[in-house]
């Protein structure tokens, strides 16, 4: 009997804690949805709300991709394939449920109509289908490493794209759909090369952001769990990880399946927002967009990826309608200040230099954007027309100046805790020195505090939920 097993048996809590965690999860998911639907959405207006919905879906896909490319350190470039599987499955379920007369007509005022229930079921089916696809691709291919895995996943996305091109044409006529014999549903009528269209618009802000909140909380729980540490250990050093008993194949497949399922979930909402899905949505351009977000945000950082998703989405919109960038520059400056302040791998001189560099970068960027705006206004062309070029330039400069991504592997919400610990350590340092480096009495002080924190949290010092 192992010590861990014994300790586990001895300290088993009641279900109360699990209920509390689950209540927090549900509250956060519904709360986020509600705030977006009834506060942010109305305040932003109809068009910005649509942009927010798009970004929310991209964020779901990017945060889920982060499990594979960030936590586990594998390089998958076929993630859009899973998004597309979820999109087709979710879209088809609610479209055909409608044609077959299972649910009433779409009611723009409702958020929890029978149609929504079917939409949610479709999203679950989409997530399941994508997860199953993730398992089938993952099991054989995750024995490969690096470039080889990248090639296989690239191939997977392309195969999905071609498979969807080979489906039957969509049955638009409800009468015809009802008359279709069982055999007529195979190969599935998903629209072939034309794509699948006329999906019912169930993709409200509420549901998209509820799904995003669920994805984020789950990814967070995963990252700061034993399974999450197994993922991270694979990224850090596969040889050491397996020597410590981590089953590499099992954890790589697990990462792949979970990431695929969450991507499928995001895909289902994509279908209900976009109202149409194309085979090319599974293609590698879409996958690359997601990879770019993950790399920019910081491989392994949930909050970094969220920031990158919203930042890039915002940039795209800005290019459409360039306004003054000064407010954004100030926000960026504040963010960088916070991030630099919590870095523990540098001393204060290096920190000062890093701050100076950040100031320079933000200043240059602000000047650049303002200059661009003025130049475009003067010359009378639209920045949107050279969007791709600017987009690429922005990416290249971030990659050069901060290759580890916006947040590296850290998280925004760890910032206050890290700051406090550093203060505590600075205060404790002189006494430690006089006590000698190997003084065991100095050690328990931190231990007790940490254990106290551990009582309410399964993950130790990573907080709630």
């Amino acid at each position, binding site marked *: 009997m192992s010590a861990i097993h014994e300790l586990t048996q001895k300290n088993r809590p009641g279900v109360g804690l699990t209920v509390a965690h689950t209540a927090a999860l549900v509250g956060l998911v519904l709360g986020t949805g509600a705030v977006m639907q009834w506060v942010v959405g109305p305040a932003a207006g109809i068009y910005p709300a649509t942009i927010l919905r798009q970004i929310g879906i991209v964020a779901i896909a990017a945060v889920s991709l982060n499990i594979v490319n960030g936590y586990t350190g594998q390089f998958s470039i076929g993630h859009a394939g899973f998004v597309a599987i979820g999109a087709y499955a979710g879209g088809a379920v609610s479209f055909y449920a409608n044609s077959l007369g299972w649910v009433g007509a779409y009611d723009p005022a409702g958020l929890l109509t029978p149609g929504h229930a079917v939409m949610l079921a479709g999203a679950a089916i989409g997530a399941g289908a994508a997860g199953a696809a993730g398992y089938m691709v993952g099991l054989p291919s995750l024995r490969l490493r690096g470039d080889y895995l990248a090639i296989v996943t690239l191939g997977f996305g392309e195969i999905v794209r071609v498979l969807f091109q080979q489906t039957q044409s969509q049955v638009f006529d409800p009468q015809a759909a009802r008359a279709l014999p069982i055999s007529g549903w195979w190969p599935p009528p998903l629209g072939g090369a034309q794509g699948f269209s006329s999906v019912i618009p169930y993709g409200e802000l509420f549901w998209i952001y509820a799904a995003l909140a669920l994805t984020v909380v789950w990814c967070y729980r*995963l990252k700061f769990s034993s399974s999450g540490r197994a993922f991270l250990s694979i990224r850090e050093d596969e040889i050491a990880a397996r020597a410590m008993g981590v089953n590499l194949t099992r954890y790589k497949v697990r990462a792949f399946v979970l990431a695929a399922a969450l991507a499928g979930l995001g895909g289902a909402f994509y279908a209900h927002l976009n109202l149409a899905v194309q085979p090319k949505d599974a293609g590698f351009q879409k996958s690359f967009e997601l990879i770019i977000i993950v790399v920019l945000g910081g491989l392994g950082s949930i909050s970094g990826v969220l920031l990158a998703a919203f930042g890039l989405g915002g940039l795209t919109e800005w290019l459409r309608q360039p306004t003054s960038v000064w407010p954004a520059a100030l926000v960026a400056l504040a963010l960088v200040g916070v991030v630099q302040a919590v870095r523990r791998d540098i001393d204060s001189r290096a920190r000062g230099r890093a701050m100076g560099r950040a100031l320079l970068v933000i200043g240059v960027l602000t000047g650049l954007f303002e200059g661009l705006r003025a130049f475009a206004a003067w010359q009378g062309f639209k920045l949107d027309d050279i969007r791709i070029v600017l987009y690429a330039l922005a990416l290249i400069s971030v990659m050069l100046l901060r290759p580890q991504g916006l947040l590296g592997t850290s998280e925004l919400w760890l910032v206050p805790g890290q700051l406090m610990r550093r203060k505590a350590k600075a205060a404790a340092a002189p006494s430690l020195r006089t006590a000698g480096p190997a003084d065991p009495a100095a050690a328990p002080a931190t231990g007790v505090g940490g254990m106290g924190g551990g009582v309410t949290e399964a993950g130790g010092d990573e907080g709630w939920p």
Partner: protein
Amino acid sequence: MSDHTQANHTADHAPGPQPGATDVARALLRAEGIGISFGGLKAVQGLSLAVPPGGLDGLIGPNGAGKTTAFNLLTGVYRAQTGSITLDGRRIDGLRPHQIAKAGMARTFQNIRLFGNLSVLDNVRLGAHVRGRHTLVGTLFRTPAYIAQERAILARARQLLGVFNLLSRADEPAKSLPYGDQRRLEIARALATEPKLLLLDEPAAGMNPQEKRDLARTIQRLRREFGVGVLLIEHDMGLVMDICERITVLDHGEVICHGVPAHVQNDPKVIEAYLGEPG
């Protein structure tokens, strides 16, 4: 039969380098004639080892003798081309490294292999991973079993960090530790897997004399408190002769001597292997 081997084993003047002759009746680790060659190079050949439960044995030899390769064979990094390996009576040759870790063998690496960006605490928690059950449902929904296990792993990791005086640095990234601390953290991480046998590959490399003395004490303490057997690769002869109960000497992949420290120390073949050809 067992009387005979027992007698041989306890004899101070062990009768020469016959592998198997000095085996104890029930070894924790028993390797019989394991070997591997890379291309034409016979890196390890016909190596036999027997470490009793809780024993502390040494594996020494000049640079390139095949010591690390022997560890890689034992832990399943390489598959032995010849011979067999049993751990606590169970055949482990052919198992994959993570299965061998689960069976009760843990190791450290000659060139430290910590999870550099993970915290000191997380490195040790990862070691405890192998003794738990980790389900996706438990993790995503935080079931009571999951919570209890995470707490157990945390408590255990803190306890181990306490043993190694690393608790005050628990939250720092492992790569930020000084060299000696990194070596000790690697041992703590390996111990977290609750091994029956611990393989240490040059744990004293790069340490100063004081650190080496501390390390020797720590290793002996581990045996007492955790009941773990230790197989030690080490170039520091003083340390090896001091703490090891039995020593196996490798040269060019082959065992040239096996016995108690006093015997090994005076064996002409060992002296020759270390000092080169005489005359």
